[in-house]
């Protein structure tokens, strides 16, 4: 399948915050309540349509456990986007954000778009981190912010696609050199990209979504 651009994403954050579940929901549209611990990096990919361009998101789902961290951080390099995830029901995962952010900034391009995600928004009764705290952290560090639920799929599409929109906006503004692979962007194999949508799969994957569906 042709695409105009390929964007490399990384998903980072503490173990158990739902990184793999977010990926599975985004790529397969399903939720798996019990997940094995991620070792190393697992991959997913999906086509999305941004401003009439087919864009392939190549997603690197990294292990969150501390013992794998020194290994996985070497794969941050060359990411155009990062989803930095915490669990709204576990305060400590929010407290560790600074450390994750430092890692991400240190090992990747300064232009990388970072989406802060407060996951498990379906567990409102167990909430331990206020939405406003997430918003404030994002504002302070120049991140985009969303609360999501990998279980109900709330805002999952939006989180991935809004990140892509921001990367695409930076490309258009000339902030990203698309010929520099260190920026996590590759130009697709075909120069001429049709704006029409082909297969049913890509139709499913190419929905334009609003900036916030407000479901969470």
């Amino acid at each position, binding site marked *: *399948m042709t695409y105009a651009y390929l964007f490399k994403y990384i998903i980072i954050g503490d173990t158990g915050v739902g990184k793999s579940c977010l990926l599975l929901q985004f790529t*397969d549209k399903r939720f798996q309540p019990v997940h094995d611990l991620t*070792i*190393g*990096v*697992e991959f*997913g*990919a999906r086509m999305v349509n941004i401003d009439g361009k087919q864009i392939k998101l190549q997603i690197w789902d990294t292990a969150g456990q501390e013992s794998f961290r020194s290994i996985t951080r*070497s*794969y941050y390099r060359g990411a155009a986007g990062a989803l930095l995830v915490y669990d709204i029901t576990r305060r400590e995962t929010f407290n560790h954000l600074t450390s994750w952010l430092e890692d991400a900034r240190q090992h990747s391009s300064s232009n990388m778009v970072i989406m802060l995600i407060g996951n498990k928004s379906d567990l409102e009764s167990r909430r331990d981190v206020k939405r406003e705290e997430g918003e404030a952290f994002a504002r302070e560090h120049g991140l985009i912010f969303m609360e999501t639920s990998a279980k109900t799929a709330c805002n999952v599409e939006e989180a991935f696609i809004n990140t892509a929109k921001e990367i695409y906006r930076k490309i258009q503004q000339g902030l990203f050199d698309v010929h520099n692979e260190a920026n996590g962007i590759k130009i697709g194999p075909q120069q001429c990209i049709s704006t029409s949508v082909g297969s049913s799969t890509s139709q499913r994957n190419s929905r334009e979504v609003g900036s916030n569906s407000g479901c969470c």
Partner: protein
Amino acid sequence: MSAGRPPFLPGLWAPHPRMTSQTRARPRQRACSTGRPGRLQRHLSGEFDQLRDFPIFESNFVQVTRLGEVANKVTMGVAASSPALELPDLLLLAGPTKENGRLQLFGLFPLQFVQLFVHDESRWQLKVKFRTGRAFYLQLRAPPETRDREFGQWVRLLYRLRFHSAQGAVPFTQEYSALEDCDDDEEDEEELELEEPPALDTRLDPQTSVLWGL
């Protein structure tokens, strides 16, 4: 193309819904031991800039149950993240996508968290076991005329990795049975009967594609 979770990871055996079950298909591109880039290496060259220069030894397999029932296709490779390494340090797993059958990389796992075993030599089967306890079985998919040789390369690799991880504690004998998996939950590393170090050169030589002296 998608998949957040490789097909072989959950439970004893559960094929990934986006993986095909094309078990009758002919063997395709075989391991890159001849110097020709394999399918996995070509896939990485296309879309994974960060991984494309890794020396890789790869083969095509089918995932099987412990009893040998055949499921989906898997391409497994080992790679060295640095040419300075004497042995590979990464395991790569890939498989065809459900949509178009093209190869897709599913996971990259540091070999320090993975153990490889000969499961059934007569059926060219390996066992891959993660430190988390998850395990799955792979049967080599290669033309009959090259299958034994290719499987032998994996066995040699497997010994090298074991020998390396043992850090010279005791030398080894190339007795296939020594590597067979006796019990899922046992620490198999300690069961190795080692005798004499290999005489083969283990220096990485990607220029001639004689990877790890296999």
